[in-house]
């Protein structure tokens, strides 16, 4: 049985359609990523599954329970981290864990919960006194107090520095290893690639692709990205029309050609250089990322 089944889910806010007839299933024990730019409908989708926002249309089942019919039963078996994680200012970290457990009528071993998210030394501090990364870990601890079957993380690493982000990735991987189903949203492709078994790419309220990271790369037909610096008389969009190129990023004389055929693209680029039209510097060929897939699928970048 799938942990989550969503079919024909739609949410409209007045004239705005935030989520437009999406369907997908998340398998038990899977880490499932919902990836997309801001405003794509990721958060609304999650909140409908969590029972926080009533859908306009469609069906949602979590662990076989219909969310619309029995939201309380679903809430009891899921853990939720919301995008803006704020807590009661005047309570300590330890008190917050006790409080959250009480919301499920549970008593938990606070020390162990805090140790799991490396916040043992912060037990007596208030949430205000924590760093961004510590606060997100507290938020995850609060989402785990009921030992949930499914954990929802809404942009868990947004706004964190690279070190804190890596720490959080480790924590999420630990949770994943404990067998829980994890659903997370992100607009970092790298994050989705590292953490997720499967990824749904959302843009403009719809799911435009859904596969494993490798599957998405393979299906997109793009193999690699060719990064180079070039100066010369050639028009910039000439690079976009080279053989095999499916997308081009430019940034102050630096270019990145996303290509489905690196051999052909390189040949064409060298041909230009030999003809004297451009002078090439700093040439590098890398494996394509999901970022490139997104660019190819949507024609725009994930983050502006």
């Amino acid at each position, binding site marked *: 049985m799938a942990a989550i089944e969503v079919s024909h889910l739609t*949410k*409209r*806010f*007045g004239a705005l359609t935030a989520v437009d007839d999406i369907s997908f299933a998340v398998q038990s024990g899977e880490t499932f990523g919902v990836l997309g730019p801001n405003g794509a409908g990721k958060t609304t989708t999650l909140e409908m599954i*969590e*029972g*926080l*926002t*009533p*859908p*306009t249309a469609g069906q949602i089942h979590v662990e076989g329970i219909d969310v619309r019919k029995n939201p*309380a039963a679903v*809430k*009891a078996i*899921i853990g*939720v981290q*919301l995008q*803006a*994680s*704020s*807590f*009661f*200012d*005047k*309570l300590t970290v330890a*008190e917050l864990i*006790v*409080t*959250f457990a*009480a*919301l*499920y*009528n549970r*008593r938990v071993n606070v020390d162990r919960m805090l140790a799991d998210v490396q916040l043992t030394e912060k037990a007596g501090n208030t949430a205000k006194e924590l760093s961004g990364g510590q606060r997100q870990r507290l938020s995850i601890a609060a989402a785990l107090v*009921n030992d949930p079957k499914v954990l929802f993380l809404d942009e868990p690493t947004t706004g964190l520095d690279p070190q804190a982000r890596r720490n959080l990735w480790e924590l999420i991987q630990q949770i994943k290893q404990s067998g829980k189903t994890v659903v997370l949203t992100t607009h970092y492709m790298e994050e989705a690639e590292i953490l997720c078994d499967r990824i749904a790419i959302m843009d403009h309220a719809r799911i435009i692709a859904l596969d494993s990271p490798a599957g998405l790369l393979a299906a997109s037909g793009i193999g690699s990205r060719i990064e180079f610096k070039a100066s010369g008389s050639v028009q910039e969009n000439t690079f976009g029309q080279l053989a095999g190129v499916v997308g081009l990023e430019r940034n102050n004389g630096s270019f990145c050609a996303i290509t489905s055929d690196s051999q052909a693209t390189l040949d064409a680029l060298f041909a230009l250089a030999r003809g004297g039209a451009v002078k090439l510097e700093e040439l590098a060929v890398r494996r394509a990322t999901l970022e490139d897939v997104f660019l190819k699928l949507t024609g725009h970048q994930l983050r502006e």
Partner: protein
Amino acid sequence: MYCLYVLTVVSMKMFVRNRQAMFFTLFFPLLFLLIFGYMNFDAPLRLHIGLVTHHPDAPTDRFLGQIRSMDVFRIHQGALKDELSALGAGNRAAVLDVPDDLLTPAGRSDPKTLTAYTNAAEPTASQAVLSILDQLVDKTSLAAAHARSLFVIQPKSVSVHQTRYIEFLLPGVIAMAVMQMSVFSVAHVFAIYKEKGILKRLMATPMRPIQFVSANIITRLIIAMVQTFLFLWIGLRMFHTHVAGAYWLLTVCVILGSVIFLGLGFTISAVSKTNESVPVIANLVVMPMLFLGNVFFSASNMPAILAGVAKYLPLTFFADALRAVMTEGAGVWSIVRQLVGMTVWSVAMVGLATVTFRFQERQNA
């Protein structure tokens, strides 16, 4: 039940740890109580008299002794120049310049002169001093002439319990403190919880909103009782007030009063668009009640239209009920008007809060 218990305990902790809330809950009303209490508006009238003497002879000294022994006078002795400047500064009702040989043996035709300087700007005080002195002169003259009084006045005082100002003030301050605490703490805290998304986070758990609201209400009812009994105790210890009526009836009044203002607090937090507008709206509602609600003075002396409005304010019912129980020992039937008034208000406010207050913003689905 465990959930409600923990939520109540933590909401109590949060309240006590919030310095601002503690200030307005306890310190601020206490300040009012002490300042107005010690101003002592009902101290007996005292006339400050400047007495200028030099080396009075024995009869004159006896006369001065009589002046000094009068309760109504507060005597300041000094040089004429100093006392006159004190009079000029408004610190004396009169200055008496007494010659050393004021009382000379009877039979002398020309009486000596005692000069009484008074403040023309204070005719009432001057009149009082002069008429008391006149009586004293008459009495002394009669005594000197060995004449008998034609009749005597026998005073018989009937003891009437005179309400002291502190007895009026204390129930008013308690009502004010409970109102301020209930309205502001709820309105402010819930607006913040909503704005910061804390309520939404709570809604992602199986907790029902009623549990969270109940925990917050229980906390504030407990705090209202703490306020009431703390201020009663302070009144008892520092101002020798007493509670004539039943404590259980006082408790009923405090609970009814809190419920009204908690309802108002939830309503204000619901109608405030932002957290910043909460104190503005709350003050708009609360301030007029502070002046019209029989807290510091009775609204019955106000213009008829204000007094008419004041009669039906929830704070008026609340303060009057507390006052009647505390000072008059009123029972349920004597304050039935206030109790009915408070009940109607609490039903109305709780109803309004239920209609307006939402845990989550309503979404147009």
